[in-house]
């Protein structure tokens, strides 16, 4: 005995019917749009043309280091700014812009009367956000350039809703559902922006020369009905990206707020070549010290480069008499240079701050034959206390190469600063008992 059961199915392997999206009720679509308010015109036009009036002020000079008053030297926009700032002088010694107490570069750029200062550049990815205007930005702008007329485009980004409902949207981009916005409030704000405001943002391409500041004098939008509207800068400071001015300058120079951009003439890519020196700077709370560990050194005469990783500490403790000895501190390899905290002399601002003074662990080291062998440690007799974070630092002197905007190759020896990539403790023990076999 048996039976068969016939079951109908409503699935089909052919999806052509579904894809054809046949509509039997066009009026329904129209009615929905009407109900959603999509037919409500405002007698406004879409932006069809944007007219920009602008002035460009190229950078003409640079002051390396904290010189007061500044002594600018002229610069070329074709040379990478990194080389100008980082390179060591031909006759040797530390770069003019290098601050040996903060282990970073300080310099200032000049464009006409304007000065933009960079403090604490770490030798990596120099760009506009490093620059802080100092004075005179309002002065001496060049005459306005001829008006630039551009065609605006819609802002678009991966995952943004398509302007037409029948366009397939990007399935790879996923933004959190608006129904479950926790814990990220952005996941609620972003779709809100998509659906209510995205169409109100247009982009006007306006290329600018590298190595210059630009002031936008006037922006006029011509809409599709020919109506011309002048558009001002965004009032909300939080929305002004790429703004180099700080709050004080905004208060002093309200006419420039939101109108100034800068673009330094930096290299598109800096090729890091051989590392000449590498020093790790580490805090040692147990010893209340900062260690400068010279990891890699280069002999200036022969050019031979070597790692100090295999160096061992010179034994100064072992004695011929067996026994247990109290030991204040164990031996440390030569490559570890201690920096000892010292209170600086009181100043007008109050008590003296804490500075870090370079010391030595080898008794036989003298100023003429110092313990340190790297140039960077040699330059840094004092360090700012706050320069070395808990995580430690790594500074390097390295050969660098970049191509300028005119295609010329440029070489220099520069420096960079980074967090230390691996633990580099000296293995120092303090205040312990040591067993001596006496052999």
């Amino acid at each position, binding site marked *: 005995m048996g039976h068969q059961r016939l079951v109908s199915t409503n699935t089909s392997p052919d999806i052509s019917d579904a894809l054809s999206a046949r509509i039997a009720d066009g009026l329904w679509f129209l009615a929905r749009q009407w109900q959603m308010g999509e037919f409500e015109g405002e007698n406004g036009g879409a932006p069809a043309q944007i007219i920009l009036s602008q002035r460009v002020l190229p950078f003409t000079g640079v002051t390396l280091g904290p010189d007061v008053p500044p002594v600018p030297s002229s610069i070329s926009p074709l040379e990478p700014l990194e080389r100008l700032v980082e390179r060591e002088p031909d006759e040797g010694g530390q770069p003019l812009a290098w601050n040996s107490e903060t282990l970073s570069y300080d310099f200032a750029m000049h464009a006409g009367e304007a000065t933009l200062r960079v403090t604490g550049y770490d030798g990596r990815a120099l760009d506009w956000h490093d620059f802080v205007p100092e004075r005179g930005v309002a002065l001496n702008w060049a005459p306005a350039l001829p008006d630039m007329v551009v065609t605006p485009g819609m802002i678009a980004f991966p995952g943004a809703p398509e302007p037409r409902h029948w366009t397939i949207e990007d399935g790879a981009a996923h933004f959190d559902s608006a129904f479950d916005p926790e814990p990220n409030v952005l996941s609620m704000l972003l779709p809100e922006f998509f659906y209510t405001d995205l169409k109100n943002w247009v982009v006007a391409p306006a290329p600018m020369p590298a190595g210059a500041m630009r002031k936008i004098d006037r922006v006029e939008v011509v809409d599709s009905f020919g109506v011309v509207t002048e558009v001002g800068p965004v009032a909300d400071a939080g929305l002004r990206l790429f703004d180099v001015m700080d709050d004080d300058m905004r208060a002093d120079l309200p006419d420039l707020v939101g109108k100034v951009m800068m673009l330094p003439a930096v290299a598109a890519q800096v090729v890091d070549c051989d590392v000449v020196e590498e020093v790790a700077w580490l805090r040692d709370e147990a010893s209340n010290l900062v260690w400068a560990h010279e990891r890699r050194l280069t002999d200036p005469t022969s050019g031979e480069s070597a790692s100090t990783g295999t160096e061992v500490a010179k034994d100064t403790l072992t004695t011929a008499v067996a026994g247990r000895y109290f030991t204040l501190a164990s031996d440390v390899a030569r490559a570890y240079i201690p920096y000892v905290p010292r209170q600086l002399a009181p100043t007008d601002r109050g008590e003296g701050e804490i500075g870090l003074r370079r010391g030595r662990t080898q008794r036989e080291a003298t100023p003429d034959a110092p313990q340190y062998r790297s140039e960077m440690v040699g330059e840094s007799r004092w360090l700012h206390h706050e320069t070395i974070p808990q995580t430690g630092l790594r500074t390097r002197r390295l050969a660098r190469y970049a*191509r300028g905007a005119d*295609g010329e190759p440029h070489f220099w020896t520069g420096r960079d600063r980074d967090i230390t990539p691996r633990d580099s403790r000296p293995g120092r023990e303090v205040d312990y008992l040591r067993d001596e076999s006496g052999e």
Partner: protein
Amino acid sequence: MIAVALTRIAAEPKGSQATRFLPHTPQSLLADPTLRVMATIEGTPLTEALAPLKPLAALLRRARALEMADLTPIGVTGAPLDEVAHAGLWAGAADEITARLNDVSTGLKDGLRQLKKQTEACFDHWRIAYQILPASRVGGPGKSADDAALRQLCDAINQSLARLAPILPGGEVPMLSAERVDADAAAREAELASLMTTLNARLDAARARLAEGGVAATDASSLTAQRGRLRAGVDALRLLLGRPQFPIVPRFAPMPGLLAPLGPAQSIPVGLDIWPRLRSRIGPLLALDGLGKGDPYALRMGRDHGESASADDPRSEEDAPRKHVFARLIGTASALSFTSGFAGFVIDEWTETRPARMQPSALAINYDAPQAEPQNVILLGVPASLDARDWDEAAAARLMREMIRWMQIRAASTQETLLTRSILPDSNVVADARRNNSFVPRIPVRKTPALKLLPFFSLTEGFHRATADFGFRTSGLTELGGRGGKRRGK
């Protein structure tokens, strides 16, 4: 030695020291006239034997064009790269080439002598054979077309050949004729005579080239004279072989006095400029010991990526730098031509990008564009009347008006309820700009019972008066909240 470092950067340097490296795909390599020698030996039994010589031959071909001024910067200043040392080197190579030349020409002469002897013997036999034919023969080969005896002989052979016809494919039999026998004999003899003439001409040409190149110039201290000897020897050898492009590699004797200063990489910083100090890993590659020994560092050809890109992108190179392949040349001859191909050893390779002078930036502008959107359906209108061929404005407006009416009717819900007000407060309210911030229902509100809708469906002009009577519950907006959904009262 020619060393080349390849770099791939995004633009062509203008007036820089780096020199453009023109790339070669294998096809273009074969098409290169200066490298045709290499192409000719492809696919011959010689290929395998000569393959290791290819890079060396290319290098040496370039090296032959080097001048003393080009050689001096390679190596430590003061290295014994003087002319006397070099002239000795070249003299040795020229002697060796001369020896090879003598071997080849001696062999050729011997061959010619034997060939001549054998040819004469062969045709002597032929003539003798003619004379013993039945009829009297006068004049020898080439003059026997009318000879009756030869014809008879041919006929006899043809008769026996004809018997073979059924078993030959196609039944075609190569019949003999007196003309054919004579013509064959004459052609063979002419061919051999021509070959001997050619070989003799080659010998003469080689001899003349050697005389012109100054074999007699034995001034050992003159580099020019020794180089002339070597070139003459190579040319003469090629003339002897009858192949003017045949690759002939001179053998230079190793000279300890020259190799020592050139050997260690750290001793040639002058020619390399700053590079070895920056890239220590290329040091071992610069040792000349590796040259020609198993070729651990393969000869590479660059490839220009910019050609197709420039076709796609019409912007100028200044505005949009494109990728090109460049080489940094170390200690090369100024006479090298980079338009015709180039061979060398890659000692370092890296990627870099040139910054553009004009960089892309943009302004983002917030501009309150009208919110109205195009409808999601396509309206296909039928002309208002059969007489009207084209649309006029009135007809189009009438069509649109009717469509809007139909749309409004479609918006009326079929879910009739008895509620007298909206389910969601203010869900059908929009601001009325004409009335100073007062609000009006977007969808007309119905106040009359549903049964009174009936006259509306007649699509009369009375519709506009009736629209004021449509309410929320007829609009189908049962799922929306807030003030008019998306527009938020705008």
